């Protein structure tokens, strides 16, 4: 109870800080702050179809966040999650391309999930391999691989996978509807994606809490050398964690292709990888809080589109709010630790 109270107090404090900060920004920008909040709220939760849009953003965010929980647990900064999502999208597009002429599109659609997870997994494995065998810090390896993935996707769209007679960064030809992920037509939401995201959260929670793998990850994350002395092999666990993170991110990439855009576009990852890093940090690496934070971020992303439409304010405000949230959380955390230290000193 005590911890819960402390936690909620912290959250309210963060919210107030962020609220004041964004209100100030809006006032400086000359926009009515309350109207802006109202439009973001109404634009994200104001109708069933809006909520469905929010969920379509929530799905990839949650998938990536679930994957990142493994790597954060073992103390790895998997910033390459963005590239892993892109590679997942590329692998599943490659597979779906085989399905265009086929009579069993559903088979290819199903296989594309595996392809996506594999693409992301392989890409993450590279970063993990460089870390464990080459001693390259995972942030540099991840960032480098993000650039490579971006290069590959541009090359494919402008080159081998171009539309006939066209050279454009718009994207590849749209897949026939048989290769689209089935969706509820009224609200344009794919139940498959929703189930996958929920399953990812469950599996992650179970893995991290109740299995040897989870325990191993935690032990190594807390103290690599102690864990090593206990007979755990940090290298192997790191590769495993990376593979999980990459797999989930790749799955998110696959859903972007098969469920949202129905083709490959340069911005297929929509920066959800980077955003999910913020989600996980803001949720304090808690598997049950992360989906909630992801939902809030998704609301901001979808709702903020109302700002340019209704108020002529740039929608990048949502990015400001998200960034301010993370900074405020970190600031409050630092402030509390300092206070604790002072108390101890006294």
């Amino acid at each position, binding site marked *: 109870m005590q911890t819960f109270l402390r936690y909620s*107090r912290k959250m*309210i*404090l963060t*919210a*107030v800080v962020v*609220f004041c900060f964004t209100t100030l920004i809006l006032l400086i920008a000359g926009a009515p702050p*309350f*109207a802006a*909040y*109202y439009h973001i*709220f*109404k*634009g994200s939760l104001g*109708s069933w*179809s*809006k909520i469905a*849009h929010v969920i379509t*953003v929530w799905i990839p965010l949650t998938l990536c966040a679930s994957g990142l929980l493994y790597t954060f647990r073992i103390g790895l900064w998997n910033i390459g999650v963005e590239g892993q999502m892109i590679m997942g999208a590329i692998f599943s597009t490659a597979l779906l391309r085989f399905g265009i002429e086929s009579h069993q599109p559903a088979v290819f659609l199903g296989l594309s999930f595996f392809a996506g997870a594999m693409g992301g997994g392989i890409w993450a494995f590279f970063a993990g391999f460089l870390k464990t065998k080459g001693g390259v810090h995972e942030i540099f390896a991840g960032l480098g691989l993000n650039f490579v993935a*971006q290069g590959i996707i*541009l090359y494919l769209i*402008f*080159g081998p996978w*171009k539309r006939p*007679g*066209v*050279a*454009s*960064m*718009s*994207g590849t030809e*749209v897949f026939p509807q048989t290769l689209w992920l089935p969706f509820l*037509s009224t609200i*344009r939401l794919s139940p498959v994606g929703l189930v996958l995201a929920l399953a990812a959260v469950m599996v992650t929670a179970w893995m991290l809490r109740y299995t040897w793998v989870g325990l191993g990850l935690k032990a190594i994350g807390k103290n690599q050398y102690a864990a090593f002395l206990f007979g755990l092999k940090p290298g192997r666990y790191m590769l495993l964690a990376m593979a999980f993170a990459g797999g989930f991110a790749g799955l998110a990439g696959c859903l972007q292709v098969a469920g*949202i*855009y*129905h*083709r490959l*576009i*340069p*911005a297929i990852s*929509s*920066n*959800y990888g980077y955003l999910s890093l913020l989600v996980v940090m803001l949720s304090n690496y808690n598997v049950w809080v992360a989906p909630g934070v992801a939902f809030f971020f998704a609301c901001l*992303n*979808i709702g903020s*589109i*109302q700002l*340019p*439409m209704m108020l002529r304010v740039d*929608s990048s405000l949502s990015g400001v709010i998200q960034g301010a949230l993370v900074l405020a959380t970190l600031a409050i955390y630092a402030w509390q630790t300092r206070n604790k230290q002072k108390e101890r000193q006294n």
Partner: protein
Amino acid sequence: MFKKMGLALSIFFMLVFMGFLCLRPGFGAEKPFQFGLLLVGPYNDHGWSQAHFEAGEYVQKKLPGAKMIYIDKVNPADRQGITIPQLVDDMVEKGIKLIIANSDDMKDGTREAAKMHPDIHFLHISGDDVLTGKASGNLSNLMGRMEYGKMMAGFAAAMTTKTGKIGYLGPLINEETRRLVASSYLGAKYAWEKVLKKDPKELTFKVTWIGFWFNIPGVTADPTKVAQNFFNTGYDVLISGIDTTEAVVVAKQKKQEGKMVWAIPYDYIGACEGASDVCLGVPYFNWGPGYLEFIQASIAGKWKSNWIWMGPDWKNINDPDTSTVGFKPGPALSSSAKKALDSFISDLGTKKVNLFEGPLYYQDGSIFLKDGEIATDKKIWYMEQLLKGMLGQSSAK
């Protein structure tokens, strides 16, 4: 202390929030006809999107009962994770009855959205879904015959160039951009050979494509660098085919460095503003009359799925109420060139000159138009390659 204040503050804000929810605008007596406009670029880009935005404002002025709701920068790079069908869902919830999608890039999304909202009217600019039979009955296509505008641009460029080298800053490669570059080339070639009576071999016409309608850092080639490269390699007139104004901006810089260079922007009537010493003129779209026609048809219940290719009004190509395509001569165009251009425009209008007349050959030497053959609309619309004599890529490698 802090705890209490935080609590009080959050309760206060929650109350305010709920107050807003209650303050929904009442459903008033007479509702205006709302139309939505999806712009691919910024509404003030001095190019493609601004031309559309101002056409929307034109409609509001002409039809007092009409109200525009627009959203700009609708492309996956600027608005990540937002799709056309999502935006359409939202606009329909706002009570919008007709939606204009202004970019080639929105083709698939618009088609998908139109299928899902059969009772809403869609106007996709520059598309051909009606021609190809992929459109549902509530979707129409509108385009301007910019081929004429581009011929005038090419003509003005050839009349001006001192080095005989004309550059074209191309967007992405598709049928639309191929026919527009080819038209510029035909206009330049006509001026060079028929008016100036110069040797055809001394005219160089080259296109470089950036990969999209405007600069997306890290994704497309940088149009500023492409433009600089043209001017640094002896090209002294640059025709723009992209949505934004890099060509005139770079030309102006080069002029200030002491180079004799010129540029011809594209799309928007005001694109020469601020670059008067290098701007030879601008071929522009005037979407107002086209918008008005479709919106009036929608209001009157006379909507039909149509593919419309509206041309200039040859009586006055710069008439804002009748001409969809115009050419506004720029301050840097010499008076002799302007005189020649005027007579060229009048010859185009009277059909005395038709540049899409055979023999014309594709870049690989195959026949585009046989001797004496006059191209049909479809043949021009679906040009497969650039023309013989032009430098640059016809399609992706």
